[in-house]
């Protein structure tokens, strides 16, 4: 490959950034690779932060990019520093210490930052968030039996933190502004299932509630309720870190706009991970996805594009969430659903929700029925396969039997 001479620079040492470094080398790229990250760590897996890291003191990180690898593959790493500007004409980055780094191909994997919560009367510095190892360690130190923990936000992060805090013996309350948990999921059935799970675990869930204010310790809810709390955690979503791209005048729409190959509006600049709003040909629209899978897939595609290679595999969006004994998996990103089939096992309470547009499966959610997710993802991916709708509601029929394209004949 005639690309050995050029230099690849990756800004952002999160999952996507780390994965992209590996793909560049795996594809045989011998040129200089520089990884620049704001956190003082090499790229690590974030999913354990809300689980093992909160449940087990001293949990160790799982690397996306191992220190040995960085050394062996001669990756230049600049951690704990940020990029101030991109000079697209000169193809040079300026870092916060005023040093410059030149690039031939640039990947922006700057990720996202947690949305900050503002509570009148409550010191902002005392509010915990969960995004980084440092966040997880700070929160873990505060989790102890009978600590009263109020969690703002009933999304994935909020509920995972709630389950972990409960496992540590805390008294946990979750406050969600919408009328259901996981409102972004778009499935009333799934939200109800998740609500029942957390109530059973002894978590106090307040729906349709907001924080109105505080006297520094006690929180005042919008419905007039008052609660004492020792710890306040906010999980109210993230915002893409687009400032650098924005200053460089790249095309942006709540995320750096890229095509399906991870290319931005500048032919030498690519983007991957939480920060992007990528054109998804299967969905027929641009989407910004915040997930482990998305970071992997986009990093692979963008890294390959940087080398002039065709993209890797396409997969329907997929996320999972472990909340205590509840394993929730979601596949697809349906913009429209006109039919839902619920498959519920009365014995163990597990549930799978199939979402259709016409006859076509457009999404699926499993609640402690993880084994069915692999087949759902298969049907979402392979347009020649489908489910026999008449068999889906009966949880006693193995899902494999309801598949119309017999897998063995593939």
């Amino acid at each position, binding site marked *: 490959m005639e690309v050995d001479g050029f230099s690849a620079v990756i800004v952002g040492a999160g999952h996507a950034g780390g*994965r992209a470094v590996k793909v560049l080398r795996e594809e045989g790229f011998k040129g200089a690779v520089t990884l620049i990250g704001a956190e003082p760590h090499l790229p690590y*897996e974030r999913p*354990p932060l809300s689980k093992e890291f909160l449940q087990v003191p001293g949990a160790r990180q*799982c*690397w996306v990019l*191992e220190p040995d690898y960085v050394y062996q593959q001669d990756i230049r790493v600049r951690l704990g520093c940020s990029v101030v500007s991109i000079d697209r004409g000169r193809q040079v980055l300026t870092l916060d210490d005023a040093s410059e780094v030149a690039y031939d191909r640039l990947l922006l994997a700057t990720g996202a930052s947690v949305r900050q919560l503002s509570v009148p009367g409550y010191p902002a510095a005392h509010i915990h968030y969960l995004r980084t190892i440092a966040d997880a360690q700070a929160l873990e130190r505060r989790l102890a039996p009978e600590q009263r923990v109020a969690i703002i936000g009933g999304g994935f992060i909020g509920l995972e933190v709630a389950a972990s805090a409960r496992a540590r013996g805390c008294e946990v309350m979750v406050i969600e502004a919408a009328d259901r948990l996981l409102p972004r999921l778009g499935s009333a059935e799934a939200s109800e299932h998740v609500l029942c799970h957390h109530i059973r675990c002894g978590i106090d869930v307040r729906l349709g509630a907001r924080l109105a204010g505080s006297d520094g310790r006690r929180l005042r809810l919008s419905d007039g309720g008052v609660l004492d709390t020792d710890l306040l955690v906010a999980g109210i979503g993230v915002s893409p870190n687009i400032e650098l791209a924005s200053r460089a005048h790249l095309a942006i729409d709540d995320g750096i706009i890229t095509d399906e190959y991870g290319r931005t509006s500048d032919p030498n600049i690519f983007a991957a991970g939480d920060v992007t709003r990528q054109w998804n040909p299967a969905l027929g629209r641009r989407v910004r996805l915040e997930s482990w899978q998305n970071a*992997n897939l986009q990093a692979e595609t963008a890294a390959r594009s940087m080398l002039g290679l065709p993209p890797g*595999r396409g997969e329907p969006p997929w996320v*999972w969430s472990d909340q205590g004994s509840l*394993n929730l*998996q979601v596949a697809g990103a349906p913009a429209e659903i006109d039919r839902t089939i619920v498959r519920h096992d009365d014995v163990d309470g597990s549930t799978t929700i199939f979402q259709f547009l016409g006859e076509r499966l457009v999404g699926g959610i*499993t609640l402690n*029925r*993880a*084994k*069915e*997710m*692999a*087949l759902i993802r*298969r049907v979402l991916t392979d347009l020649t396969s489908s489910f026999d709708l008449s068999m889906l509601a009966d949880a006693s029929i*193995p899902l*494999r039997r309801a598949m119309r394209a017999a*897998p*063995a004949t*593939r």
Partner: protein
Amino acid sequence: MTGKITILVGTMSGTAEMVADALLEAIEDAGLTGRILRMEKARVETLSAGGVWLVCTSTYGTGEVPDNAKALYAALGEQRPDLSKVRYGVVALGDSIYPNTFCFGGKRFDELLSSFGARRIGERLENDSRSPTYPDDAAREWLERWLESLRESSGDASGTATEGAEISR
């Protein structure tokens, strides 16, 4: 008795569980009996009592066994049971995104079981989630060869006519 094949499942995302279902179906299609036992429900004593086992497990993070397999894996290591009455096969699931620890979940169990005297039948199946073959298809195909090996091993070593007869139907 080795008539019943117990599929021991270690799973994170559910794929190993789905593959176990496919294996059980194929075992039953072959006229044999089987059952699925999730690893968190398995006990060392059940394993050391002997029989035919199929370890079907994914790999988590940097080469770890899945969460539901951790207790069994640790208990085996601590109790060091005599597994000389055990014959087993391994279906290991992995992702070549982690080349250095590919399929380590299955490999770790393989190593542990054989170190306590269990006898592995056939080759280990190592399935890459990036391969174009679906893991359940790969497992069913692998199982055919594995059952052959199992029949052969029943014939030669351990012996009893009943056992051989059961396995070869």
